[in-house]
Structures are given as structure tokens and as C-alpha cells.
């Protein structure tokens, strides 16, 4: 019963995080939203009985991608500072 509820709630949260990452103007907030989407996706992999893929997704998707995005955003000017 609880597992079915998690199976319904988690994809909704993943889609919400992805939509927030697309729609927001703030680039740092979008990078954090992508990291949150990746973390929820690794949780979804774990409850779908694939712990191997979950560890790889959490390591690469939630940590290294976020670090690369933050480094790239720091090298540019933020949009809201110009206005």
C-alpha cells in the first residue's frame, strides 16, 4: 500500500522538479532543481530493485553534474545582476 503510494508520488515529484528547472529564470536554482530531480530519480531506481543504477545515478547525476553546472555558472554573469 505504502509502496504503491510512493510509486505514484515519486514520478510526479520528478516531473515537477524537471518543470521547475525548465521554467525558472535563476540559473543556480535550475541547477539545484536538476540535482533534486536526479536524486529523486535514483530513489525511484532503488525502489524499482536496481540499486546498482541508483548508486551510479546518485554519484554522477546528483554530485558531479551539479558541480560542473555550478562551475560553469560561476564563470558567467548572472542574469538578475544585470537588471
Amino acid at each position, binding site marked *: 500500500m505504502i509502496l504503491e503510494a510512493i510509486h505514484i508520488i515519486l514520478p510526479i515529484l520528478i516531473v515537477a522538479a524537471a518543470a521547475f528547472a525548465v521554467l525558472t529564470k535563476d540559473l543556480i536554482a535550475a541547477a539545484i532543481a536538476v540535482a533534486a530531480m536526479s536524486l529523486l530519480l535514483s530513489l525511484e531506481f532503488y525502489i524499482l530493485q536496481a540499486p546498482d543504477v541508483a*548508486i551510479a545515478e546518485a*554519484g554522477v547525476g546528483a554530485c*558531479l553534474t551539479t558541480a560542473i553546472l555550478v562551475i560553469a555558472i*560561476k564563470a558567467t554573469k548572472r542574469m538578475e545582476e544585470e537588471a
Partner: protein
Amino acid sequence: MSGMSKIVKTISSITFPLITIYGLYVIAHGHLTPGGGFQGGAIVASGCAMMLVSYGSIWIVSRVKEKNLSILESLGAVCFILLALLGLGFGAVFFNNFLVGTNSLFGVVPAAGSGLADINTGGVIPLMNFAVGLKVIAGLFGIVLVMAHASRTKGEKK
């Protein structure tokens, strides 16, 4: 890129050994539990990337050279292929697991099937996990390090 505040640096210094130990545990138990060389290497490289973001690339580049990381990555690939060729030499086929059943390093065959505590099993598979882990750590950290050091702004050159 420059470093962050003293709070971030302190918390990163405390959590970096824990992340590294967990990643090395995932690599060393790759033949028993979920995970393996790539997953553990990605975890260790994530910890290194956290140190890079908090301390800044100039502080890191003065200690870790990108050329040495490249040498380590190539060493991991060479070790992997060398182990596979040793299987060709000792046994009959490429990737032959020549260590299993010899009761030496990683060569013990447990009597009642493999449990989660039988780390001295698996033959040549843990050694290949170590090689892949070395390659993934050096490769992913090298990518992030080069990107951070190449994208530093003009005011903080040198």
C-alpha cells in the same frame, strides 16, 4: 575559481574523509554488494569535486597536477588490460579468471556459497574493480579540475 567561506571549507574538510571511505568501500566490495569500480569511483570523485568547489581551483592545482591525474587514469586502463592478458597467459582465453581456486589473494572459494562477508573471494574481479576505480577517480576528477581551472575569471589569474 576562488574558494568559498570558512564554514564551507571546514564542513568539506570534515565530510571529505567519510565520502572517500564510503567510495573505497563500494569499490572493495564490488563483487559482493551492489556497486563496483565505476560507482565507487564516481563517489570518490564527487568528494574531490566538493573539495574543488569549496577550496577553489588555484589551491587544488598547486597540490594536484592534471598531468599526474592523466598518468593515473592511463595506469588504471593498462592494469585492466594487463589482467585480461594474464588470463590469456595462465589459462586458455582472454579474461580468464586464473586466480579463483588457488587459495591465494582473492582466490578462496567459500564452501556454502558467497555471503556478504566473504571479501577474499572472486578471483581476478576485485583487482579489475580496483583498476576501474582508479581510472574513474582520476578521469572524472581530471575533467572537473580542468573545467574549473580553465574557467577562472581574469581577476584571479595567479
